[in-house]
């Protein structure tokens, strides 16, 4: 347990060292205990655990949506604790793609416009955004739906739009919190296939899920219980990296 980052795999994209997240009370909730975790670039990781165990908290910290109360977090080589809010926001916008259980699509905007929102906050020109959006929509197989409104799509299609938006900016990491939670088994299978495709294309995929079959197909599984993260292959500590 005395290892330093020097021994971490050189391809590590996510490095948590002693990360804690305690929600201020009263009473204070220690949602994430001191966590040491390394995720290598190109990893496909499933995060499982009972409800309330701290999975979303972990994902939010990794996604820079939440600030840890203690510890050090290095994302893609950037020590995130040293960044100002503008840099954190931009790092979030460029390195990470998010997929949520509720798709968070803007109801009054077309599929293309929803996906083209990616890159807006890193000053990407609109033309570039539209081009990369069209490409991402093709990748999730919705090219024929790009002028549709979200309300005209099925649940599975909506989640694919959200995935297109997440990958449009070619982030290093795809973070998914219960992406199939609102979908039936068949639709969920399509989504899982998409994640596997992203993984094959070299993207780092981290999926929080209750879905056994989805978790089982990931290369690496993390268990979260009462805020403690452990690798499923219990012999190995979580920080030791994947595969």
């Amino acid at each position, binding site marked *: 347990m005395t290892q330093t980052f020097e021994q971490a795999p050189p391809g590590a994209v996510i490095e948590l060292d002693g990360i804690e997240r305690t929600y201020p009370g009263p009473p204070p909730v220690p949602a994430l205990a001191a966590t040491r975790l390394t995720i290598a670039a190109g990893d496909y990781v499933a995060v499982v655990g009972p409800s309330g165990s701290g999975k979303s908290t972990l994902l939010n910290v990794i996604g820079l*949506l*939440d600030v840890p109360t203690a510890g050090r977090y290095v994302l*893609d080589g950037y020590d995130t604790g040293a960044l100002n809010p*503008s840099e954190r926001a931009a790092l979030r*916008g460029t390195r990470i793609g998010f997929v949520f259980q509720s798709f968070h699509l*803007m109801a009054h905007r077309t599929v293309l416009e929803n996906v083209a929102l990616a890159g*807006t*906050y890193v000053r990407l020109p*609109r033309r570039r955004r539209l081009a990369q959006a069209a490409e991402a929509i093709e990748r999730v197989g919705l090219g024929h739906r790009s002028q549709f409104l979200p309300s005209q799509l099925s649940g599975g299609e909506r989640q694919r739009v959200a995935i297109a938006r997440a990958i449009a900016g070619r982030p290093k990491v795809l973070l998914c919190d219960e992406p199939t939670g609102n979908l039936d088994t068949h639709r969920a299978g399509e989504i899982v296939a998409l994640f596997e495709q992203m993984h094959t294309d070299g993207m780092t995929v981290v999926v929080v899920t209750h879905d056994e079959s989805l978790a089982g197909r990931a290369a690496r599984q993390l268990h979260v219980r009462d805020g403690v993260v452990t690798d499923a292959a219990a012999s190995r500590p979580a920080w030791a990296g994947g595969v």
Partner: protein
Amino acid sequence: MAGEAPAAHRSALAAPRSGIRVADLLREGVASVAARPGRSILTMTGTVLGCAAFLAIIGLTSTASGQITAQFNELEATSVTVVDTGVSERGEPRYNFPEQVGPLMRGLNGVVDAGVYASLNVSETIAIRPQVDAEASAGSSLAVYGGEPGTLAAAGVELVSGNGMDEFHIQTRQPVAVLGFAAAAQLGIASVVSQPTVFIGNRPYQVVGILGQGGSLPELGNAVIVPIGLGLERYGPPSPATPAHVLVRTDLGAAGLIARQAAYRLRPDAPDLLDSIAPPDWSMITDDVDTSVGTLLLALAGIALVIGCVAIANTTLVAVMERTGEIGLRQALGAKRSHILAQFLVESVLLGAIGGLLGSALGIAAVLIGSVSRSWTPVLEPALPLAAPVVGIVVGALAGLYPSWQASRIPPAAALQRV
């Protein structure tokens, strides 16, 4: 800690910075406002009504105070006449106006044009051919007036032929003449093209202009108008019974002020030698109505604007709550708190600005309908319709401040938990 080395190295590189292009910010705002047109219109109603009411009240008030009625037309409303007493301090006939009345009066703010006119004592015959026509024109009704270019402009009478007199003719006392329409008809001159000449006695005057009908000085209809300086030099001062006048055309509403200033402007040394006649002050008659009713209406318009402001604030606040997920999503895509604030502020300002524009259009329409239905001439300060959208923008910005600030304080993780 050796382990910090690689990370520290990377952090030294410039990390990307969050930012949004102005065009994108505006586009997002327009899209959000346009996405819910019904709600946007309802939200704007208060602002529209407030701005419209302001414009309508101010417009109708100014229209009413510059009104053409049977007794009181616009020409009269903007006419000031300055009358010479026609005598010196010792009671001898004298012309008391300075030289060049027109340029002097035009130097006053609110004066459109001005000029002197004076009936001259001419007993000689007026004719085209002095010898031949002498008898024919004897006893004719033609009169000789001294005048200035500004006189004709101020009287609102147009030239149907020729260019008329100019300041050069006046200054150099050129023997030129402008004919009233009746005088021209009597003399048989239809145009200045053939360079006709009229003779007063045996002095020739080249005709440089022929007046049309109309204007506020009908007495010029059968007049031969010569440069005032020349006329005085040749024919002496007008008789005290028919003294010289100065006609001043003012801006709407400026007549009273100009009337008070005119005598001092023309004869600062002896203003008592001149009398100013201003048109009846119509606004005085209506002042009581204007102030009480107008103030009440303006207060109502102000209340409408406040309601409009509250409506926009309320809608934006509701929108912030409804769109919490969207706020989280934008943050997930790299938006900073200030971007969220700007986003909602742009939307509320847009609502206010569009409301102001619509209100402006509605207000102008109300002024037009209100005045046309009574065949009044609508009068509206040109800057006012432009002021309405500015008022709308201010209303929208005020309304959006608090909700936008609220929106920007929602932490992204919490925002995204919402469905």
